[in-house]
């Protein structure tokens, strides 16, 4: 299953600002109370970076013009806070960090927010594919200028590694394991020497030394073969963190409803997400993903990942469907209708699994837990 297929069909991407802009007030607020020691090139100190990712209970009071405003630092990542501390400590040490996990576990999201807080810039991104070339990693040339003036700094078109080494920032390398082995080797030599050679240029511009603060956050998908086939030389240079799907149903519900709310607001739809319906969706995702129901009954896992990202998608789509087609709030019916599309991609066995999940598990919940679940069970005819 390719990840592209699982991406939100609603083009959320376009509306999405980079984290440092979207959360600029929060970053500013954290900066205003930042007293901790920090590496020279870091925008915030490690503790404040941590605050930015996991949120703070109390708002920060900050002067804005001649007014004092309260800024809440929201939680960006739900899950293992200790892992976040480790990730930050890895970035503090010289090691690049590789976030691995199933698709939709917020690896990219975490990488974006970490770089937003550490560099105030999350746009040094390389998207790894089988076709990624050295140009896209290090630098390339403006050929017109190259022909006119010969090799010179002016003709050089910097790519993320060049930029980040020069400025002491962090490169985000998405889906690093999809790159060819040659590209992986290139990365190894940059990482071990911490220099980038530009043989085309005369000294002193023929070499770029990595400034302090230079680092890499890679992401890789464990559903791809890639992680295991990564060259061991490259593996050795990284610190790994495994990002797990959210375990806690409550947190997942919170996240999904928050994201749905943001979406509805942006789309100008004046409706609220329905927490009960979201609970139905999230419970289904959570139980099918983990292969076991809250009652301890085994559930057949579908071949797709059932990620939180997709739960958000189902919730949003269900709200949209209800709004545009039925002119009503999201409900059990629209949840089931959109669930099917998300679970059943190109594998019809998954349809059976979803059916049997409803026939066994949801049936039981409908008996034990009452109306809400009974409605959900009744909506199984859409499957």
């Amino acid at each position, binding site marked *: 299953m390719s990840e592209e297929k699982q991406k939100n069909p609603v083009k959320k991407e376009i509306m999405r600002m980079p984290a440092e802009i979207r959360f600029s007030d929060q970053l500013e607020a954290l900066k205003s109370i930042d007293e901790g*020691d920090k590496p020279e090139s870091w925008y915030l100190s*490690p*503790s404040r970076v*941590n*605050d930015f990712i*996991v949120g*703070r*209970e109390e708002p920060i009071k900050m002067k804005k013009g001649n007014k004092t405003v309260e800024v809440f630092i929201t939680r960006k990542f739900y899950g293992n*806070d*200790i892992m976040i*501390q*480790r*990730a*930050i*400590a*890895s970035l*503090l*040490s*010289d*090691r690049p960090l590789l976030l*691995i996990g199933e698709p939709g576990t917020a690896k990219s999201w975490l990488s974006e927010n970490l770089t937003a807080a550490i560099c105030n810039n999350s746009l040094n991104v390389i998207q790894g594919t089988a076709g990624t070339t050295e140009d896209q990693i290090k630098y390339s040339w403006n050929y017109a200028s190259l022909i006119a003036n010969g090799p010179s700094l002016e003709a050089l078109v910097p790519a993320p590694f060049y930029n980040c080494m020069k400025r002491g920032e962090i490169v985000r390398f998405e889906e690093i394991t999809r790159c060819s082995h040659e590209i992986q080797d290139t990365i190894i030599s940059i990482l071990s020497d911490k220099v980038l050679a530009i043989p085309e240029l005369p000294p002193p511009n023929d070499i770029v030394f990595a400034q302090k603060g230079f680092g890499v956050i890679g992401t890789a998908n*464990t559903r791809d073969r890639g*992680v*295991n086939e990564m060259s*061991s030389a490259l*593996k*050795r240079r*990284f*610190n*790994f*963190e*495994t990002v797990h799907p959210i375990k806690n149903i409550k947190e997942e519900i919170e996240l999904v409803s928050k994201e749905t709310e943001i979406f509805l607001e942006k789309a100008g739809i004046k409706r609220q997400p329905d927490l009960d319906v979201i609970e139905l969706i999230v419970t289904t995702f959570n139980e099918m993903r983990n*292969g*076991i129901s809250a009652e*301890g*009954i*085994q*559930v*057949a896992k579908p071949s797709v990942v059932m990620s939180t990202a997709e739960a958000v998608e189902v919730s949003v789509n269900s709200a949209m469907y209800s709004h545009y087609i039925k002119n009503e709030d999201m409900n059990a019916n629209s949840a089931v209708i959109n669930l099917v599309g998300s679970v059943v991609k190109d594998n*019809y*066995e998954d349809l*059976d699994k979803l*059916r*049997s999940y409803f*026939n*066994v598990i949801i049936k039981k919940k409908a008996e034990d837990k009452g109306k809400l679940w009974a409605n959900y069970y009744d909506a199984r005819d859409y499957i």
Partner: protein
Amino acid sequence: MPKARKSKKLPIAEEELNKIASIINPSDSSVYYFGVRHHSPVASYFLTKIFAKFNPDLVLIEGPADAEYLIEDIINQKSQPPIAIHTYFSDKRNSLGYNGVLTPKEEIPLRISSWYPFTEYSPEYVALKLAAERGNEVHFIDLPLQDRLKFEKEIANDKSFFQKYSQWSERYLSESLFMERITKKSGMRSFNEFWNHNFEINAFHNSLEEYLQRVLTFAYTLRWFSEQNEEYPTWKTIVEREKYMARNIDYYRTQNPDKKILVITGAMHTVSLPFIKLKGKKGKIPKEKSSALAPYSYKRISDLSGYTAGIESPYYQSLVWDKIHQNNGQIYNEIALNVLINIKEELKGSNSFVSTADIMNAYHMAKNLASLRSRHQISLEDLRDAITASYIKGDIEIFGFDVIREAQRILIGSKVGSAFNSEGNPLQKDFYQQLKKLRLPKEDKTKNVRCEIYKRETHRMKSQFLHQLHYLNISYGKLEKGPDYIAKKNLELLTEQWRVRWSPYIDDAFPKLLPYGISILNVARNKLEEQIGEKYNSLEELLNYLVKALQMGFLDLFEDLIDQLNKRVNYGQSFTSIIRALSAGILLLKYRTSLITKYNKLVENFVYVTFTGATSKLKELIQLPEDEIEEAVLSLRILNQISLDYDLEFISAEILTESIGLLLDSSQKIVPRVEGAFIGLLFSHNKISEEEIVNRFKGRIHSNENIQGASEFLIGLFLLNKTVLITSDKLLEVIHTNLMQIKYELFLTILPGLRKAFTSLIPREIDYISSKLAKLIGIKPELDLGLISPEALSSLKEIDEQINNQLQEEWGL
């Protein structure tokens, strides 16, 4: 993330602060109260300082007063920590009221035991050693177990309190809401981390006074909060214990007016004891000696950590203790580095290769984490995190196992102590008492013992005792004959036949079992409990333990076991092993019902979960590799029998038939034998028509694939349901006519399979079918079997044998 971690002053009122100050700098210079936490090296370190500063003559320690006679043994050269005082109480008068509830019957007293483990760096042990060196008199001042239980009886609202007593005897300091909250509030992942942070790593640079200020302020707050909320179920006991201790302290004080007394207790008592004004006689202790010194191990001390105030990493702490007297202050960092190197060395040659660069990186990371978390030096948690991040190359769930296990092994350590008991080995005593009580022979020659386990209580007890000995490898008895629930043999037997023989070598077995308890029963139970608690028990092992628990009479362990079994079943088991578990569950239900009525519900639930688990695995069957098909279909037959069993009314066959229906409809390719079996199963539940069976068979025999699929189909079908053949004329007819149509060579290729399919029939069924078949093809059975001569019979036999041989040679049948 730690927020307000900067050392702010606690909002404690002036008066309270004065109280704490008066403990640290008392006006009365004859008694000094010193507060510790068990197994804290830093507490021990400051304890040595107080010895030097206060220079006591007499030392009082929070240990069970009735075990005071063991002090000599503890400090004896022959004893080496880790060791533990094991005290026990045998409720002969049923004062707790649980005889017959937690024991098989009322005449059998409940035995409860409690452990006080010491490592070489436990403050209590350090104090005992120091006092001995200095020639100070020492006493234990805490309430004896027996009296403690009296108070606890009132608050123990359910039997599990006493059932798991030995695990909980140190629970005071770990099960508190306050601790839970403060841990969470400070962003720590466990109370241990909170403690290590505040009272070990960030405290050991303190002056003695600063340290005491820290510890006692915390203890005071904890105590205050707990008292307000009466949140310890055992609060009342704490109060009673303190009264007892206060009286004792007063007693020793009046007895020794000129001596300087050092009182060492848990910090929570230290903030209370000085203010309890009680005049005292020496506290009463039970007449009977009921304690022993047992060797202990780092592993067991760490095992405690789950539910009591044990420590996570005894070996790690011992390194701290070894280095703590060095002037160089970076001990925690040094230890972290050493551990990192150690783990690297241990991982050599394993799949998880760690380089020197990884060590350096892990070390830096650990330091970064420490400073991110506002610690002066690297803590155990920082160390663990650094190991996780730097040593595990890939997905932690796939590549993490080696590294984590090795790290865990090193941090816990493998040290085992030795215990000297001047009064002899109590376990040995118990063994001989039991022999006498159960009238088992103590002779060095073989004797037979019969136990009628279903009929007589005393016999059952005898059997349980013998099983316990067997389980503990104490070579006394051997089971010659009896029901075997594991091999599922001799289940109809109502008696067990044992051969027993005593020999002097038996006595060698006892010392090494002492850490588990001082009665055979307790030792066996604790051992089994430990095995059950292991993390990676397989389904088979767990079933095995279930049977052991039954045989040894530890029915109360059932709950845990069943719980674990349920989890196991749901976790990556194959269809056949789930069925094995399921049939074991059924056996238990059927054959031991009289013994386990109380636990029937549990077993039923297990059977239910296993049954649904098995149905969800059915999908596995449709594409099995050849060598697994046979077993799987047999398992399916068992599953079907269970689903048809009317005694098991809590099982719903619907789930089974429905899932099979789904699979058959799913247009996926199915192994022919499994398809036949599925069909047979559905037919036995009347979920499928004769018509469809016939069609499926036709589909197989006319398929362009492999004609053997047809015979395979029949094998599966008949294994699950032979009645089709008998009840349905149609099927037989179709088989016959279709076989007649195929080519002779083809027929030969499926003949062995067909033969196999029909072997599941018994002679009477064969008769019946042959006569039906005869009718079908219009011949009369010519042989009148009733009149056949012996000669003819033997020549028939010969022919049959020849056919058999030929088949075997040619077809491997």
